[in-house]
C-alpha cells in the first residue's frame, strides 16, 4: 500500500485563497483517484504561501481489473448497426460472442479493462487537476499557456512504499514531476529531495518552513499572547487576521512594538483598523484602561539582531500611517466643532448616492422625513429622530471614513459626541446600520430604530422606484439584507405599522426628488403632499403639468413623468401602486424565509398573508404564530380537515346550483341533534372570535375556532347534507357557509396544505 505525496510549488499565493485551495486540491485529486479505481485510507492537505501539499496514505498500488458486458444488436442486424456496436466497445467482429437468446442470436461484447499502475493514474489525475484548478483568479506567465494563481515552479510527486520511493513519471506543460522542493526563501535557499511525507515535513522544518497553517497560527497566537502577557497586556483577538497572517509567512516570528505616545489617544477602533488594514498588525491593549498601547507584527524570518531592524522598520511605517490617521481625526474634530455634523455633511450634496436616486444629501432628507414619521410608532421623539437622521450619514464626508470606509458609523458616533449631540443621537450614528448580518443584534434604542428603519425603507423603495430590484442571485445593493433588517427590527421590537403606507410615503419623497431636478416649486408641492394625511391629487397633477410643459422633448424626463402620472392614477383609483405591492410581496418572501428557519411553514404564512393588514409585519407574524400553534394541536389539525370538507361540499354545490350559499341558515330547519349542536357551537365560537379578532388576540380566536372541531366532525358523521328535502339541504349548505365564513375570518385556511 503506497503513500502519495504531492507538492505544487509556486510564487506567493494570496493568503485569502490558501485554505480553499488546499481543500480543492484534496478533493480533486482524491476524487480523480477513486473514480479511476484507486481507493485510499486517508488524505490531508497543507498550505504555505508558496506551496499546496497533499499527502494520501494507503493507496492501492494498481486499480482493479474490471469486466463489462455489453449487449449489442442481433447477429444478422444491418452492417452499420454492428459496426457502430464494435466501435463503441473498441473490439473487432471476432472478439465478440454470439449468444442464443429467445429473440435469436445476439452479439455480446465482454470488455475487460486490466488494472493500471497507480503512478499512471496519478500522473493523469494530477495533470488534469493542475490544468483545471478552480482558483478564484488565475494567470499566465512567460510564454506558457498554463494558468495558475501565480507562476508555478515545480511539482513534487512521489510514491513511497516498503520497497522505496519513486518519482511518478509525468509533467504538466513542461514542468516535470520531481522529488525535490525548496525551503524558506531567505533562510534556507536551495532545493533538496525528499522520500516520504514524514521526511518532507521534517526537512521543511529544518529548512525553516512550518507546513501546517494551523501550527503556524497556533505559534503566532501563543507567542503573541505570551509577549503581551509579559508586559501586563493582552492581544485583541482577531481570528480572521490570525488566519490571514498565518498565510503570509512560512516561518512565523512574533515581534511586539510600541505605538508612539502621540497616537494613544486616538479611538481604539481607529488604531485597530489602521494597524490591521494597512499593516496586518494585531492590537495589544491594556486590560485596565482598555487602551491600545502596543502592536504585534509577525515577521517571516529570524535575524541575527533578533528582529530589531525589522521591528524598527515596522514602527516607522506605523508612525507614518498613524500620523495620517491622527491628521484625519483632528481635522474631522475641528470640522465638527466649527460647523457641526450638519456642516460636515454639506459636501454630500455633491456626492451621488445612485444615478437614479439623486445625491446623498437628498437621500438624507428623505430619511429624515421618514424617521420623523416613524418616531411615534417606535417611541422616539420626532425631533430627536429627525436630528439623528440629519447627521447619521455625515461621517461619510469625514476624512477618516474616506480613508477607512469600514469605520462608517463608528466615527459618526465619536463626532456626534464631540459636536454635543446626546439623547441617543450619537448611538444612532453607529447603530442605524444594524443589523448587517442575519445574526447581528438589531437596534432597540428608539432613535436608532427610527433611523435604521427609515434608512432601509428609503433604500428599498428607492431601488424599486428606480427599477433596480434584485434578480436571481444578483443583489448588488444588498436589498435582501435591508428587507431582512426591517423585518427583524420590526418583529424584535414588536412595532405595528403599515409598510404600505410608509413605503408609499417614501415613494412620494423619491418622486419629489425626481421633480426637483426639473423644477423646485413643483417639488415643494409634492413634498407638502407627502407630509399630509390626504393627498390632493388634483393639485399634484396640476403641479406636474406645469413642470411638464417646461421640459418637453427630453426622454428621461418624459419617462419620469410617465412613472409619476401612473402612480397618481393609481392613487386616484384608490388602488395601491403596483410597485408598492411588489415591494410588499418581496418583504413577504423574505419573511417566509426568515420564519421557515423558525419552524413556521410557508403555507401557514400564505394563509395569513391572504388576510387584511398583511403589511403590518408584527400583526402578520402574530397571526401566523397563533395559527401555527393551533395547527400543531390535534383539534387544530382535524379542524382543517373539517373546514376543507365543508368548503369542498359547499363549493361543489354552489357550482352545481349556480348560487352562493352565504346567508340564512336557521336552526328551526335543523333536524338532527348534531346539526343543532353545530348551530350552538357556531354561535358560541362567533361570540368569542369576533371580539378576539377585534382585539388582535389571535390565540383566543384560533382556540375558539379549533373548538369547533368536535361539533363539525360529529355533524359530518351524523348528517347527510344532500337531503331530499330542498329546504333542509339549503339550510345545511348555508350552515356550511357559516363554518367557512367564520374560519376564513381568522386566516385563509384554503391555503393550508395537506
Amino acid at each position: 500500500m503506497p503513500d502519495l505525496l504531492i507538492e505544487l510549488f509556486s510564487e506567493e499565493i494570496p493568503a485569502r485563497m490558501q485554505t480553499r485551495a488546499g481543500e480543492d486540491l484534496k478533493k480533486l485529486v482524491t476524487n480523480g483517484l477513486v473514480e479511476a479505481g484507486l481507493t485510499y485510507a486517508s488524505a490531508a492537505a497543507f498550505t504555505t504561501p508558496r506551496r499546496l501539499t497533499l499527502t494520501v496514505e494507503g493507496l492501492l498500488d494498481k486499480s482493479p481489473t474490471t469486466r463489462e458486458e455489453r449487449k449489442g444488436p442481433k447477429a444478422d442486424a444491418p452492417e452499420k448497426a454492428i459496426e457502430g456496436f464494435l466501435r463503441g466497445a473498441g473490439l473487432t467482429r471476432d472478439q465478440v460472442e454470439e449468444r442464443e437468446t429467445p429473440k435469436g442470436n445476439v452479439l455480446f461484447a465482454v470488455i475487460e479493462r486490466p488494472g493500471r499502475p497507480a503512478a499512471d493514474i496519478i500522473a493523469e489525475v494530477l495533470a488534469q487537476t493542475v490544468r483545471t484548478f478552480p482558483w478564484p483568479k488565475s494567470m499566465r506567465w512567460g510564454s506558457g499557456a498554463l494558468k495558475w494563481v501565480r507562476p508555478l515552479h515545480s511539482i513534487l510527486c512521489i510514491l513511497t512504499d516498503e520497497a522505496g520511493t519513486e518519482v511518478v513519471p509525468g509533467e504538466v506543460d513542461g514542468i516535470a514531476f520531481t522529488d525535490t522542493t525548496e525551503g524558506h526563501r531567505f533562510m534556507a535557499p536551495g532545493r533538496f529531495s525528499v522520500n516520504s511525507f514524514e521526511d518532507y515535513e521534517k526537512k521543511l522544518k529544518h529548512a525553516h518552513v512550518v507546513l501546517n497553517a494551523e501550527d503556524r497560527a497556533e505559534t503566532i497566537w501563543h507567542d503573541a499572547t505570551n509577549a503581551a502577557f509579559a508586559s501586563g497586556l493582552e492581544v485583541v483577538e482577531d481570528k480572521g487576521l490570525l488566519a490571514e497572517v498565518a498565510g503570509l509567512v512560512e516561518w512565523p516570528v512574533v515581534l511586539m512594538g510600541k505605538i508612539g505616545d502621540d497616537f494613544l489617544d486616538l479611538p481604539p477602533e481607529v488604531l485597530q483598523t489602521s494597524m490591521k488594514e494597512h499593516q496586518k498588525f494585531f492590537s495589544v491593549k491594556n486590560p485596565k484602561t482598555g487602551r491600545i498601547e502596543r502592536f504585534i507584527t509577525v515577521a517571516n524570518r529570524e535575524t541575527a539582531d533578533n528582529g530589531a531592524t525589522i521591528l524598527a522598520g515596522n514602527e516607522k511605517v506605523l508612525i507614518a500611517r498613524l500620523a495620517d490617521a491622527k491628521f484625519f481625526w483632528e481635522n474631522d474634530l475641528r470640522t465638527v466643532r466649527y460647523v457641526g455634523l450638519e456642516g460636515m455633511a454639506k459636501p454630500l450634496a455633491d456626492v451621488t448616492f445612485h444615478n437614479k436616486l439623486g445625491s446623498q444629501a437628498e437621500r438624507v432628507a428623505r430619511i429624515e422625513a421618514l424617521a420623523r414619521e416613524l418616531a411615534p410608532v417606535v417611541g422616539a421623539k420626532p425631533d430627536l429622530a429627525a436630528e439623528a437622521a440629519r447627521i447619521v450619514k455625515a461621517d461619510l464626508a469625514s476624512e477618516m471614513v474616506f480613508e477607512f470606509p469600514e469605520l462608517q458609523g463608528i466615527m459618526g458616533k465619536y463626532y456626534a459626541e464631540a459636536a454635543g449631540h446626546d439623547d441617543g443621537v450619537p448611538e444612532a450614528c453607529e447603530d442605524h446600520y444594524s443589523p448587517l448580518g442575519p445574526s447581528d443584534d438589531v437596534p432597540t434604542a428608539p432613535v436608532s430604530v427610527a433611523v435604521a428603519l427609515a434608512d432601509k425603507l428609503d433604500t428599498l423603495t428607492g431601488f424599486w422606484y428606480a427599477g433596480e430590484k434584485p434578480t436571481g442571485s444578483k443583489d448588488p445593493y444588498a436589498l435582501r439584507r435591508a428587507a431582512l433588517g426591517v423585518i427583524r427590527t420590526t418583529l424584535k421590537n414588536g412595532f405595528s405599522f403599515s409598510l404600505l403606507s410608509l413605503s408609499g410615503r417614501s415613494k412620494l419623497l423619491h418622486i419629489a426628488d425626481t421633480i426637483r431636478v426639473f423644477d423646485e416649486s413643483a417639488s415643494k408641492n409634492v413634498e407638502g403632499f407627502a407630509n399630509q394625511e390626504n393627498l390632493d391629487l388634483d393639485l399634484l397633477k396640476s403641479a406636474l403639468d406645469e413642470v411638464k410643459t417646461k421640459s418637453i422633448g427630453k426622454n428621461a424626463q418624459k419617462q419620469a413623468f410617465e412613472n409619476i402620472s401612473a402612480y397618481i392614477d393609481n392613487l386616484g383609483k384608490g388602488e395601491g401602486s403596483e410597485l408598492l405591492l411588489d415591494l410588499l410581496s418581496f418583504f413577504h418572501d423574505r419573511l417566509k424565509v426568515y420564519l421557515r428557519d423558525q419552524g413556521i411553514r410557508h403555507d401557514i404564512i400564505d394563509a395569513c398573508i391572504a388576510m387584511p393588514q398583511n403589511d403590518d409585519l408584527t400583526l402578520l407574524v402574530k397571526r401566523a404564530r397563533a395559527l401555527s400553534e393551533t395547527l400543531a394541536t390535534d383539534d387544530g389539525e382535524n379542524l382543517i380537515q373539517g373546514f376543507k370538507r365543508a368548503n369542498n361540499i359547499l363549493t361543489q354545490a354552489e357550482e352545481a346550483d349556480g348560487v352562493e350559499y352565504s346567508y340564512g341558515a336557521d336552526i328551526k330547519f335543523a333536524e338532527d341533534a348534531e346539526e343543532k349542536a353545530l348551530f350552538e357551537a357556531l354561535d358560541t365560537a362567533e361570540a368569542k372570535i369576533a371580539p378576539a379578532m377585534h382585539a388582535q388576540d389571535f390565540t383566543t380566536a384560533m382556540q375558539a375556532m379549533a373548538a369547533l372541531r368536535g361539533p363539525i366532525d360529529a355533524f359530518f358523521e351524523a348528517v347527510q347534507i344532500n337531503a331530499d328535502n330542498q329546504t333542509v339541504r339549503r339550510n345545511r349548505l348555508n350552515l356550511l357557509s357559516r363554518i367557512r365564513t367564520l374560519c376564513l375570518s381568522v386566516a385563509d385556511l384554503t391555503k393550508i396544505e395537506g
Partner: protein
Amino acid sequence: MSDTVTTPKSFQEIILRLQNYWAEKGCAVLQPYDMEVGAGTFHPATTLRSLGTQPWAAAYVQPSRRPTDGRYGENPNRLQHYYQYQVLIKPSPPDLQDLYLGSLRAIGIDMDLHDIRFVEDDWESPTLGAWGLGWEVWCDGMEVSQFTYFQQVGGHDCHPVSGELTYGLERLAMYILGVDHVMDMPFNDPQTPIALTYGDIFKQTEEEYARWNFDTANTEVLLDHFVEAENECKAILAAEHDDPKTGKRIIMAHPAYDQCIKASHIFNLLDARGVISVTERQAYIGRVRALAKQCADAFVQTRAGGWQPEDAA
C-alpha cells in the same frame, strides 16, 4: 551575500545602482518619456511594448505626475511630481522574483536583516484597459515596489506575458537612507561641495504646481485640450496605413498614443481642479480607455507589435 552590501549615500546613487543592476541583467536602459504621465506604466516602452509577440527588456526612470497628491511640499511623503523606476521584461523570466530581490540587495537592503514579503495586490488600470496579477512587495511592513504579471493591456490579452516591476523611488530611498521627510533627503552625495537635498530641487516646484493644479489651471482651456487630444488621436488612427508620400506602410500608433497620454493627463488635472463629478469621472475614464484600446489595436498591426509583412497576404 550581505558582505558586499554598502548603504548608498544619496537618492541619485540609488537610481544609478538600479540603472547599473538592470543594465547588467540585460535590460535596455531607456530615458524617461518626454510627456507628462501619471505613472511609469504609461511610457510606451511599457504600455505598447507589452503588446504583441516581440521580446522586450527595458528599464527606466519615469517622472510621474499626480496633481491631486500635491501638498505644497509639506507632507513628508506626498508629492504631485515624483519618480518611478520601471522594469518591463517580456516574456517574464522564470527567475523574475530573484532578479527583483537582487536589485534590492544592489541598493543596500541586507536580506539577512530585513523581512521581505510578497503581499497580494492585483493591478488594474481602468484608463489603459489593463490588468495583471502580482503583489506589492513589503520590506519590514513598508510597500517598496509593485510586481505585476500583465494579463491584458489595451483590451488585448498579453501573449507572452510581461513581468513589470515598479519602484516608488522617493519612498524606497527615504527608507534606505533613513530620512523622515522627503524634502530632507540628500539628492547627491552630502559630502560633496555643493550638496543638494530633494527639497533644494523640488520644494519650490511642489508649491508652484500645487497652486496651479488646485486653483489656477484654466479648466475651460483644459476641457478644450482634452477634446482636441481625443479628436487628434482618432484622426491619426483613421489615416491610411500606406503613406502616400513614401509608399511605405506606416501606422502612426505612437503619435496617436501620445495624444492618449495627453488626454489622460488633462483628465488628471481636471480631476484635481474638482470640476469632474462622480458620474462624469467614469465617462472620462471610459473615453481615455477607448483611446488606449484603439492605440493598442493599431500597435499590434505594426512590426514592433509583432506584425509580419506576410500577415498582409
